[in-house]
């Protein structure tokens, strides 16, 4: 649209004539307005001024915005890392190592449970108050020898990458089980104490418990009945 045409249109529009409603209209304007306001109760509905309240106290003290933003960023990063650990693929970040298959896991669980029973009988023995012969060494020594033999077989079966931690535990158990197998409490009561100390120092019982918890449930239940 060209400027002259636009100006011409506006010039024409500006000639618009508003009819004067007349003096009578203006003279009665207030009376009509007042009547309407009285009828509508408008004179009683003046809205009060908004209350002037003191400035709200700052919830956060004056800390530079960049500091708050940095802190928020770090917090967000930490939360993200934590969520990644919880929800990421198992073994990728900090998940458990590969497990032996179910049958082998049952064998391991059974071996660990039997070893634990033997060790507990020693750990709970008090040489100061009990007769070393109450240990029934014949039975414990026989079981220990069997467990040493089974340990050798399991060591061979756990040669894969997921079996390292179990092989290490079996090796530690083997040392103690061999001591038990060779124990002669009638001739050397101190030998019982040496085995007990070895169990405590190596935290063998704790390691057995942890390993049993990490094994598949089917293996534990099917082989040990736990």
């Amino acid at each position, binding site marked *: 649209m060209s400027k002259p045409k636009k100006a011409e249109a506006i010039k*024409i529009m*500006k*000639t618009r004539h508003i009819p004067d409603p007349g003096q009578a209209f203006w003279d009665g304007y207030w009376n009509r307005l007042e009547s309407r306001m009285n009828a509508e109760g*408008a004179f009683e509905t003046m809205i009060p001024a908004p209350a002037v309240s003191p400035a709200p106290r700052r919830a956060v003290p004056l800390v530079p915005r960049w500091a708050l933003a940095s802190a928020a960023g770090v917090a967000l990063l930490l939360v993200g890392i934590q969520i990644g650990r919880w929800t990421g693929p198992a073994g990728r970040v900090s998940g458990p190592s590969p497990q032996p298959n179910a049958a082998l896991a049952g064998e391991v669980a059974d071996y660990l449970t039997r070893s634990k029973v033997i060790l507990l009988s020693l750990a709970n023995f008090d040489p100061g108050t009990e007769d070393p012969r109450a240990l029934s060494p014949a039975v414990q020594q026989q079981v220990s020898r069997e467990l040493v033999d089974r340990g050798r077989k399991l060591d061979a079966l756990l040669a894969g990458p997921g079996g390292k931690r179990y092989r290490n535990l079996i090796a530690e158990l083997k040392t103690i089980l061999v001591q038990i197998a060779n124990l002669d409490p009638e001739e050397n009561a101190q030998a019982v104490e040496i085995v007990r100390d070895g169990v405590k120092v190596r935290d063998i019982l704790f390691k057995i418990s942890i390993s049993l918890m990490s094994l598949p449930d089917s293996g534990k239940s099917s082989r040990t009945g736990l």
Partner: protein
Amino acid sequence: MGDIDESDLIERLKAGDRAAFRELVENHKKTVYRLAFDLTGNHLDAEDVSQDVFIRVFRHIQTFREGARLGSWLYRITVNASRDHHRRKPREARAASSVSLSADRAPDLETAAWSDQPEKSGDAVLLQARIDRALAAVSKQEREAFVLRHYEELDLKSIAEAMDVSVGSVKSYLFRGIRKVRKELAGMRGLAPSEVRYE
């Protein structure tokens, strides 16, 4: 709408002085009515809207900020009251208003018939009818922008404040409005418009 200092009047009105309110009404009734007429297009609606404006002024005077211009506030209230009136009014009633618009024009027609220069008076009536039709052809917002810019002669910023839109939107409304008006006025060159406007 009047740049005179009305701070004393406002203070008295805020204190609930009804005489101050009447004074304010008397000072501004003609300008408010004129704007309302330009926005609505007929006398009856213009009076209703102008009364709505003054009722709102009375009710909300406590919220009027010290130092603000009463005229700017009145523009904004009038535009809003006009919009509300338009929304409340059924379509049928709006159509009837256009008939009453003709009734408003009746004195002009009568004058034209008895004029010493019947041809000129007839052209003037025809011109007014064409202008009214052109204003009716634009949208509500385009009409508001056009009236505030070319009849009230406000700047773009004041129009934007009165319409509660951006300056860009005002420019857009003005451009589209004038284009439609020009289309309605096509072929009217040659008419000799008088510069009469009601004061």
